């Protein structure tokens, strides 16, 4: 073990602040910012540290839900539709369920790829072998984020994702 990381703080808070319900923001700083942009082209495939190709962005309607995904080190896909999380609260269409930003794990924290269902973040993770899992299907691997997003839509049966609280 070495190197204190932000996750140590997270884990610590999980023990001490546990019991907070999902909707209850706690006073942690919002750490939702994506990793610094690495200054690479958009169209050539993204090479991951593990040697796996980073999947391309996607954006589609699947079973009536809007699913989209893009590499987390980009602010947004080319259409600019997601530029800046802060601007999001101003989107009138879903302002009524604007998420509390504080107290979340930071939906993109440690993530390589951002996946959203109807504009709500789905926490995803890449496995060492290049497969993917999501918080909704956390014990089952998928070959791509798109497959994972579609599986989450089936699992959700119309329910909305809610912000992740870990402490």
């Amino acid at each position: 073990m070495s190197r204190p990381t932000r996750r140590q703080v997270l884990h610590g808070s999980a023990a001490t602040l546990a019991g907070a319900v999902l909707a209850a923001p706690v006073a942690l700083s919002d750490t939702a910012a994506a990793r610094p942009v690495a200054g690479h082209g958009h169209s050539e495939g993204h090479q991951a540290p593990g040697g796996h190709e980073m999947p391309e962005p996607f954006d589609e309607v699947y079973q009536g839900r809007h699913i989209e995904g893009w590499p987390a080190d980009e602010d947004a896909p080319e259409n600019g539709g997601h530029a800046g999380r802060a601007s999001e609260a101003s989107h009138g269409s879903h302002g009524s369920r604007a998420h509390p930003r504080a107290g979340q794990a930071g939906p993109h924290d440690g993530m390589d790829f951002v996946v959203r269902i109807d504009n709500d973040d789905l926490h995803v993770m890449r496995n060492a072998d290049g497969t993917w899992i999501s918080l909704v299907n956390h014990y089952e691997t998928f070959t791509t984020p798109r497959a994972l997003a579609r599986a989450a839509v089936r699992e959700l049966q119309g329910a909305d994702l809610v912000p992740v609280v870990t402490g």
Partner: protein
Amino acid sequence: MAVRKNQADLTATEKRNFVDAVLELKRSGRYDEFISTHNAFIIGDTDNGERTGHRSPSFLPWHRRFLLQFEEALQSITPSVTLPYWDWTVDRSPRSSLWAEDFLGGDGRSGDGRVPSGPFAFGNGKWPMNIRVDGRTFLRRSLGTGVRELPTRAEVDRVLAMTVYDAAPWNSSSDGFRNNVEGWRGPNLHNRVHVWVGGQMTTGASPNDPVFWLHHCFIDKLWAEWQRLHPKSGYLPTGNTPDVVDLHDTMKPWNDVTPADLLDHTKFYRYA
């Protein structure tokens, strides 16, 4: 000495005491602390970063300590209660007594997966989903839907036969007993059971379903069985491994317990 029994062997009184203690932890808010702790680790544990509760060698001692903490909480309600285990190689049907009305309640109904009856059914008002990943507030299950079959005893024995505890790179791509019992490799034991149950059990907030504890109690028992089969095979790694809990490193969130402290379960309980 506390004795953990097969859930199939519990008396009616033992089942009632277990269920009542679980419901009391829920009522007091203590139950949900376990869910959020688990959720925090499952999100935070990554193959190429720090990893403690899952996809790492400490998967087994971390859950052993987590279960001990939960069992102690139950015993603070009713001192005679211990965790039962679910041997899913034997009780592998939705018709098992595990899923009866007097214990965990049954399968979810078709359509929305809601568990309609039993102590944890939404209608009883005693089992709200407070720590959750989506908007649904009722316990859900879909037994045998996400995957048709639970692991068999032959598959378990294949994994128990592995002589090495864990191996570099100490994550979901490792060879060895730990990763094969966790299920990222091989016949898929632990992970597959989560998927078989369905509902909240497939999510990071899986302790929302009380069967979480019975499932992990059996995983814990398999670790004990493996140790008996391989007395010369110890926990690995034993030192200086970045991001990974070595034998004598303390584990979060407790910070006062190491894998070495947890290798011998007979200090705490025995399995019947």
